């Protein structure tokens, strides 16, 4: 981001007739004054874009400028480079405080109001799923078109272990908010989340072991097959040889909400039952943020680990990686299991938030939706993936409806924009793959791979009279 800004700064300068040398020859205070003026103008443009001269718009502009303009990476305290943490922490702080200042936010141009807190919960959950898919697609380079199967597995784990589904059992382990006369298995959500993750990871391994020998597009097809079978099993699972596993198309509802129980509320000031909280959505949002943070932490630590480097090696050249002694199957299976883990946790949390699990939620479309987040944001880059997930989940929840309303109001048309949701995602996928295959916020390594290409310049694309093809760019 910062380097990009620097590059565009130099380009703007040379556009104005100033080369780098001449710029540097000026006294420092002149340069600083010019930079400050440009930043001020940029801020004013930003405010003008928001259309209102309100204090909150000013605050947004100030926050953006403070985060983007100074060279935070150079800041050192006591010789330790603390600067690189500041933008991330600031963004986190802004996110945590979001429910408190949402009401004073201005209208956005075209998109309308800022997303509601309930939308933010969904955005955070999808961010977690996208981080999970990023392990498989972004790091290991295995195209998974059936990620929804993991989401479904996690959601059904929550539905089985935190609802009345198996009504001949009577098990309660720390669940909150049970009605008198409850039946079934009720475990506390804090146990269900890791259980869902682990069960889903095991499913990932089971799916992965026979199929990961296949390369590229065939793996994609097999995962797609699993992704199609899973919802059908969920849909028809109300009578598996007489056993009601998934309650069919009706789905399983209600699923218990999270909570820490009365003892924790009395002694630790933790919330006893989320569903009774006044700021219901905000509590769910903060918990989702914690889950996302855990996912981000695991993702960034794993990326730089031995395993993560093995994934990247496999993505770039499977044969070479195998020749260097990387165990292909084990490494790929780990990528699958890790990705599945986060998909499962996100699915279980979503089931708890929506208080239900329905087979209609697990269509192929959702797999592509999550894949689209990863591609749009930038395969392999955690921040890119989170951005892609937040943006698309927002579009899906509110953005498209708002944008459609804006378009219809301004052009006197009557287009049901949300109907064309997946066509819009299709356009996004095609445009990104054609013009910016590394995504909006790329990781430099993926970008290099995508621009270099994997094949030599083919003979048949050589222009007439152009002589020999140039050495691979």
């Amino acid at each position, binding site marked *: 981001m910062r380097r990009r800004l620097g590059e565009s700064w130099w380009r703007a300068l040379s556009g104005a007739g100033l080369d780098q040398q001449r710029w540097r020859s000026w006294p420092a205070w002149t340069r600083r004054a010019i930079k400050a003026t440009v930043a001020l103008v940029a801020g004013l443009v930003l405010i003008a874009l928001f259309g209102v001269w309100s204090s909150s718009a000013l605050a947004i502009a100030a926050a953006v400028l403070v985060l983007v303009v100074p060279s935070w990476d150079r800041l050192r305290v006591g010789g330790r480079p603390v600067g690189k943490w500041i933008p991330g922490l600031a963004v986190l702080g802004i996110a945590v405080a979001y429910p408190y200042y949402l009401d004073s936010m201005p209208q956005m141009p075209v998109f309308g109001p800022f997303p509601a807190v309930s939308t933010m919960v969904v955005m955070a959950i999808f961010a977690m799923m996208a981080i999970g898919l990023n392990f498989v697609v972004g790091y290991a380079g295995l195209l998974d078109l059936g990620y929804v199967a993991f989401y479904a597995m996690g959601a059904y784990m929550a539905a089985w272990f935190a609802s009345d589904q198996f009504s001949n059992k009577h098990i309660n382990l720390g669940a909150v908010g049970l009605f008198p006369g409850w039946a079934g298995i009720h475990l506390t959500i804090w146990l269900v989340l890791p259980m869902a993750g682990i069960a889903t990871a095991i499913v990932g391994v089971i799916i992965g072991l026979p199929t990961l020998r296949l*390369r590229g597009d065939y793996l994609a097809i097999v995962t797609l097959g699993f992704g199609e079978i899973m919802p*059908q099993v969920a849909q028809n699972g109300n009578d598996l040889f007489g056993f009601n596993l998934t309650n069919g198309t009706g789905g399983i509802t209600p699923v218990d909400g999270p909570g820490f129980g009365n003892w924790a509320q009395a002694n630790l000031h933790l919330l006893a039952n989320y569903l009774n909280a006044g700021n219901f959505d905000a509590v769910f949002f903060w918990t989702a943020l914690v889950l996302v943070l855990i996912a981000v932490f695991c993702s960034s630590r794993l990326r730089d680990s031995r395993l993560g480097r093995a994934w990247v090696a496999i993505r770039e050249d499977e044969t070479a990686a195998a020749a260097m002694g990387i165990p292909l199957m084990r490494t790929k299976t780990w990528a699958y299991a890790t990705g599945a883990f986060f998909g499962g946790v996100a699915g279980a949390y979503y089931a708890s938030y929506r208080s239900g699990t329905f087979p209609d939620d697990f269509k192929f479309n959702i797999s592509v939706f999550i*894949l689209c987040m990863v591609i749009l944001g930038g395969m392999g880059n955690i921040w890119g993936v989170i951005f892609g997930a937040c943006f698309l989940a927002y579009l899906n929840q509110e953005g498209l409806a708002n944008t459609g309303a804006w378009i219809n109001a301004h052009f006197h048309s009557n287009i049901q924009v949300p109907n064309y949701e997946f066509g819009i995602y299709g356009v996004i996928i095609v445009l990104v793959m054609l013009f910016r295959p590394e995504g909006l916020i790329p990781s430099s390594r993926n970008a290099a791979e995508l621009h270099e290409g994997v094949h030599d310049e083919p003979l048949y694309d050589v222009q007439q009279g152009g002589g020999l093809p140039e050495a691979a760019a």
Partner: protein
Amino acid sequence: MPTLAAVLLGLLLVWLVVNFVQGPAYFITIFFIGLTLGAVYALVALGYTLVYGILELINFAHGDVFMMGGMFSATMILSVFHLGAHPSTVSLVLAVIVSLLVAMLACGVLNAAIERIAYRPLRNAPRLAPLITAIGVSFILQDVAIGWKGPSYTSVPQVLPRGNVFSISGVTYTWEKLIVVLITLPVLLALIWLVQRTRQGKAMRATAQDRDAAAMMGINVNRTISFTFLIAGALAGAGGLLYALYFNQVRYDTGFQLGLIAFTAAVLGGIGNLPGAVLGALAIGFIQAFNEGLTWHTPGSDWTQSIVFSILILILVFRPEGLLGERSPEGG
């Protein structure tokens, strides 16, 4: 592993035989339904196999091109020829032939245009890039169909006659099923002639074998690839017409599911192998018809998709070269 396969096949055989003994006439009627389904699948599966043979690309948008073929046909029959149910023979033959040609041409051009816009710029990219683009194109086509015909079913009148060709001791074969096969056969024969006997077909086969070597022999590779997409699209268009006529309804998502099933058929027969695609399509057609029609210990239509995809997964994992086999899907 071979023993397991043998046991499974044996069980399948027992299941078929028991079902046959329980009602031979009914069984054969179901068999004819399977044949008709297989014919439609074959047209779509051939498109997958042609494109995969030449580019090693799974053209996800192919099923949606097929769906657009159904939409074109529906438009021709409803708005251009204004056919109702039970039209006269002359107008029926004329309408079907003209609609067939229009649908084939439109879908061929559409498919070639998709290749030009969305796949050709990515020819040197990693293999997953055009695959992802293909998924995007698939969604775009579906939404084009929503914008054009709306999100609900477009119904096509029953123009094909439903009378019996023959009815022997309870076994009936209706005209509509025969017509579907009668339209499919010449299209398939023309395709085989084109690929095996013509200069253009030779260029296609050469390009599929080795693109660079073909270029050195003076073959215009880009044009050959475009031509292959044109042919594949035309086959999908023909399939779309037959689907619209036989099932009497098309919807924006018709192509996606059917495309996946047809792709399974192509993999089953050995992708890249033209006779294999037809064989695989017939096999899938029978599997679907028997699963949905037979009564003795049959999973039923709720499970058709799961069965088809399980076959796909099993084939890919245990015999990736398919029944007839040509190239290894490992890609290697």
